[in-house]
Structure formats: structure tokens, C-alpha cells
């Protein structure tokens, strides 16, 4: 019998052992093969990337396994092209033609098309997550998601509109609601995943950033109105002074942006801590140790990495993003392996083509 059963433990059960140099080799080969095959290889390349990242991730000293294949991703992408990209192209082409002759009908059509696109984006997010979980195994036990994503798409549309109407004020509410909705559908084998992220613990930090952004926006607009010549009026004074005025305006906008960013970093770090900290998998709990400083360092290094390699550094982004989280996550609690039964959820048969079409997968 297995000695891991029902043994209480507060130690961190999660370990990530990936190495950037190993990943770079994989990513470089992927890049070359993708170029040589006019892009077709990228489905296999993505599979290879995930296989590496998953195998380097250990839960209770045992590596995760990625069971997705390149072929199913290719099939998913072809389906997404036929069922999504092509119809969308036709619809937007027709709307373009109608703009000339039937502007009202074209406007009404767009009123249907745009919400439908947001809904589809939600469906794509859900299904991409479902595909990833269903292709993740530990000791032969699969993950999965209980729904098909259509209901989540509806919720995504509703909440996104709410966020939009409130000028972003409701962002913490919307973000945590969506995370909870997504993760509460997830399962690891027979174990239910539950998420109970609470927006109230985040609203304070967010409002700080939001308020600063609002004030900054008013300052920038006010400054612009005060210093720039009115439209229609011929510009007066010498051109150098005008240039200086515009430069000043850019400088102010930059300073405002940096201040808002600093406040928002603190919110974004708190958001990650809340999202991960509220996650339970059976009797296991996760938490993540991310500070605003971590996030700042992470993105600064990313920028340096891409700029100073003339863009080649982009191929390291999947690793950078995955390892940023995987190195900071902790999993504690107990797992009764005998009680962890195989998943009874049906696994999707194709890859995450829709998410691919929306270009939303980070790794």
C-alpha cells in the first residue's frame, strides 16, 4: 500500500525545477521548425513546450504529465478557422458593404456581432482551460472541467459589460467572479476544485489605483486644454516653444502613467495572492507569494529580454510566465491518494483552437 495516504503535512508539496537554458533549446528548435514549415509545426512546438513545463512541475515529488498532442491542436485550429474565423470574416465583409447602402442595418448587425465576439472570447478562455486540465495527469489521474464553456461565455459577457459600464470600477468584482466561476468547474480526478476569491479584500487597493488614474486623466486633459492652442485657431508663437509644450505634456502623461502603474502593481500582486490563496483542491490549499516588487521586476526583465535580443527573447515568454508563477506557488495540506479516484469527466477531443484564434494562450 501507499505510504502517502492521509498523512498530515504542512510542507510545500509543489516544486518546479525548470531551467531557462533547457527551455531556450526547445524554444529555438520550435522557432526554426515553425518557420521552415510555414507555421504548421507550432502546434507540435506548443505541445513540446508544455511537456517540458509540466514534467518540471512536481507535486508530492512526482512530475506532472502533459498528454496533449500536436495533431489534436492542429485539428482544433482547423475547426476554429472553419467555424469561427471564416464566418466572422464573411460577416464583417458584409457589414462593410452594408455601411454604404444600409447603415442602420449594418449598425444593428454590429450590435449583435460585438457581444457575440465577447461571449465567444469567454467560451474560448473556458475551453482552453478545459483542454489544458484534461491533458494534465498526475499518477495517471486526469484533471478536467465540468461544463462546455457556453454558460461561462454568458457570464463573461455580462460581467465584461458591467465592468465597461462602471468605467472599470467593478474590475476586482468582475475578475474574482470570473475566476471563481472558472475554477469551481474544475476537478482533479474525483476531487472538486473550489475557489472563493473575494473582491472586497481587493477593492481598497484597486480604488487607490483607479482614483489616481482618474485624477491623472483629469490632470493630463486639463493641462492639454490649458496649454495647447484651440483647434481651428492658427498656432501662435515660435514652433520650438510649441514643441516644448507638447514634450511637457508627454512627460506629464508618462509620470502619471508610472504613478498609476505603481498603484496598480500593488493591486495586481494582491489579486494573484487572493486568487491563488482562495483555491482548494479537496483538502489541499494553494497560495502564492507575489509582491508588487516581484511583478515590477518580472516585467522589467521581460522588456529588457525582448528589446536587447531584437525580439528573439519573445520565445522565452512562455517559460518566464510559467516559472514566475510555478516558483512562487505553494501547495499544502493532505491528499488521500486512495480517495483520489479517476476523473469521470469527458475530455474534449480537439485542442484549444478557438483560444488560438483569439491568441490568448500564454504558454
Amino acid at each position, binding site marked *: *500500500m*501507499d*505510504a*502517502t*495516504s492521509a498523512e498530515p503535512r504542512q510542507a510545500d508539496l509543489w516544486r518546479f525545477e525548470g531551467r531557462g537554458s533547457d527551455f531556450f533549446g526547445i524554444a529555438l528548435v520550435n522557432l526554426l521548425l515553425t518557420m521552415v*514549415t*510555414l507555421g*504548421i509545426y507550432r502546434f507540435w512546438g506548443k505541445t513540446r513546450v508544455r*511537456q517540458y513545463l509540466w*514534467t518540471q512541475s512536481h507535486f*508530492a*515529488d*512526482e*512530475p506532472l*504529465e502533459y*498528454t496533449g*498532442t500536436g495533431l489534436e491542436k492542429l485539428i482544433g485550429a482547423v475547426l476554429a*478557422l472553419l467555424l469561427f*474565423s*471564416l464566418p*466572422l*470574416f464573411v460577416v*464583417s*465583409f458584409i*457589414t*462593410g*458593404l452594408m*455601411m*454604404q*447602402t444600409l447603415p442602420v442595418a449594418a449598425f444593428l448587425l454590429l450590435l449583435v456581432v460585438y457581444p457575440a465576439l465577447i461571449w465567444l472570447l469567454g467560451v474560448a478562455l473556458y475551453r482552453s482551460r478545459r483542454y489544458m486540465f484534461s491533458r494534465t*495527469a*498526475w*499518477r*495517471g*489521474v*486526469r484533471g478536467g472541467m465540468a461544463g462546455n464553456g457556453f454558460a461561462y461565455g454568458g457570464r463573461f459577457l455580462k460581467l465584461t459589460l458591467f465592468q465597461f459600464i462602471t468605467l472599470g470600477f467593478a474590475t476586482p468584482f468582475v475578475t474574482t467572479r470570473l475566476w471563481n466561476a472558472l475554477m469551481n468547474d474544475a476537478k482533479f*480526478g474525483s476531487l472538486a476544485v473550489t475557489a472563493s476569491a473575494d473582491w472586497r479584500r481587493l477593492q481598497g487597493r484597486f480604488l487607490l489605483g483607479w482614483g489616481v488614474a482618474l485624477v491623472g486623466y483629469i490632470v493630463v486633459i486639463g493641462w492639454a486644454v490649458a496649454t495647447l492652442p484651440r483647434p481651428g485657431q492658427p498656432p501662435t508663437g515660435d514652433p520650438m516653444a510649441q514643441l516644448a509644450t507638447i514634450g511637457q505634456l508627454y512627460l506629464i502623461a508618462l509620470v502619471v502613467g508610472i504613478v498609476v502603474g505603481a498603484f496598480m502593481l500593488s493591486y495586481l500582486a494582491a489579486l494573484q495572492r487572493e486568487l491563488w490563496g482562495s483555491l482548494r483542491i479537496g483538502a489541499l490549499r494553494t497560495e502564492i507569494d507575489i509582491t508588487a516588487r516581484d511583478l515590477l521586476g518580472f516585467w522589467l526583465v521581460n522588456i529588457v529580454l525582448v528589446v536587447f535580443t531584437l525580439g528573439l527573447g519573445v520565445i522565452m515568454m512562455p517559460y518566464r510566465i510559467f516559472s514566475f508563477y510555478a516558483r512562487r506557488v505553494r501547495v499544502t495540506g493532505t*491528499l488521500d*491518494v*486512495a*480517495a*483520489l*479516484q*479517476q476523473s469521470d469527466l469527458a475530455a474534449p477531443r480537439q485542442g484549444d483552437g478557438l483560444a488560438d*484564434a483569439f491568441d490568448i494562450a500564454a504558454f
Partner: protein
Amino acid sequence: MPTPSTSPPSDAGRSDARLHDGRDARAHVVSVERDGAALRLRGDEHDEQVALALLRRGQMTPAGLTLHRTDARDWRLIVAPGSDFARDLPRLGSWRPWQRGLAVAGTALGVASVAGIGWAGDALVSRLAPLIPPAVTAPIGKQLVAGMGPACTGAAGRAALGRLATRLAPAGEITGPLTLTIIDSPIVNAAALPGGEVVIFRGLIDEATSPGEVAGVLAHELGHVARAHVNKGLIRQLGLSVLTGGSDAAAFVNLALLLRATRADETEADGEAIRRLSRAGWASAPLADFFDRQRRKPERRGSGIAGLDDYAATHPPDAARAARFRAASVAGAVPVLDAAGWQALRTVCAVQKKAPPAAGV
């Protein structure tokens, strides 16, 4: 943590392995022994034979080599890396010969069709171009013309231009609609747009020293219309945006791309221009003069219309083209327009000219 580990094969060809049977997350220690064409697994809860033909080699981890079963997707057996029976197993996901053949054939077909489109693409596009119905192209053209600026309304001037067009392209000769518009803009240019829309900018008429030059430019643009070159541009863009997964119809009609006709198309339109001019009894030499002047002009003004620049930018004016027009010019040509007609054409925009145009015109 004390998970059971694998042990190297013992003397009797028997070794310990770790089994995840796919029912739950427990790890079972089993002894593994090769038994003919099968593998015998024995443990606390397991005593079974698995045909070697069902087994595949999966990934290698520090714990050992993971074996998969083709008939049970969640079943995993982790054996010592050196196990002799594991060496000959096919890799997980490795393809059978017929699958490999299919993949090779598919790739070859794909490469061949890409190469074929590159090679025979223009011929294919030329065949398709005349088939696009005007109902599709007309709204695009109208939209583009409307976005270029105010049209000149001088009735006598437009009538004069109409006379030129009728002479160059007699009624019924060009299938589909044909609309001429003079745009009140200082750009020195003319363009053929989708839906038989031909636009001439006031700058070009101002720049022309004789009606023959305007007639030459018009003949060239009518050549583009007659040979459906604009539709070819549309098809190329459509194909491109489908291939790149683009789905934004607003970006669909890119004026700059649309007007960048291929060299072959330009040559073809030149031929059409010469044919039409000589049929009308008009000289093509003035068009050569116009080309030469454009070529010598150093500056290229921005037009203020996205995707559109001066004539020299959209019609590469090389010496060979001018020479061709000169050589083909008919002797004893008849005048293109009488003095009154020419005067009317030159003042076609005067009716609605409001503010003085930018300096230099």
C-alpha cells in the same frame, strides 16, 4: 517521500516497477516479468498479463521510464530505464507506416500547392478577376471615392472629360459600370478603383500641358478597368487576409495595396493605352512627355489621402515606358479637345474652389 521506486532487472529477468492503474492515484509496487509476447505484472492487487504489442514508451523521468498502454489511456507503468523488454517498444505517439506515408503525402501536397499558387497565382487571379460581380465591387469603389475628397462639379469640364472617355472606350466596350470622377485635390495622380470607378485629381489636370496628356493618363486607367486589374488586387488582398487569419473588413480594402499593381499589369495597361489612343487617332507622345516630367520632379508631396501619393509613386515612371509611348505615337494625330473644351476641363473645379490651395500649386 516514500514512493516505491523501480529497481534494476534482477537475474531472473524480473524487476520491480511502479504501477498507476488509472483508477485512482495510488502507486502499486508490482514485479514485472517478461512472459513470451506479454508482460506479467504481479502485486498486492494486480496479477495480469499485458501484451507487449499494447505497450508504448513514454517519457523518461528521474523515477524511470514511463510505459503507456494503447488500450487504457490512464494506465502508467514506471520501469527501470534499462529493462530489456522496454528497449524494443515503439515510442508513444509514434506513427504507423501508413500514417507516416499520409503525413509525407500531405506535406508534399501542401508544399506543392503553395509553390503552385506562387507560380500560377497571377494567371489564376487574372481568370477570377472578371468574375467578381459589380454588385460587390461597386460599393467598395463608391466608398473609396467618397473618402477622397470633394468631387469637382463644373458641367462643361466633366462633359469634356466624358467626351475623351467615350472616344477611348466606346459605349459597351467595357463590361460593367464606368464612372469618372474629378477630385478637387492638388495631388498629381489618377487611379482606377473597384466597381469601374476612375478618379482623376485636379493636380494632374493642372500639371498637364495639353489635353493629350490627360487623354493618355485616362487611356492608361481605362486599360486597368478593361483588364480588371483592380479586381485582381481585391482578390489578392482577400486571399492574403484569409491566409493570415485577418477578419477585419475595415482593413480589407487597403488603398495602397490596391493601387500597387504588378509590373505586368502596368505594362498591360500601357499597351491598352497605346491601342486606345491610336484607335482614337490621338498621339501617345504627350503621355511620354508627362511621364518624363514626373520622373524629373524631385519632390513627392504627401497627398493627405492615406495610401495615395503622387503619380510617380503609384506608376513607376521609367524611361522605357516613355520610349514605348513615343515609338507608338501615331503620325498626323487629330487634336484631342478644342480650345473651349480644354479650358472647361482646366476650370472644372473652379466652381467650388473655396480657400486657396496649399502653396506650390
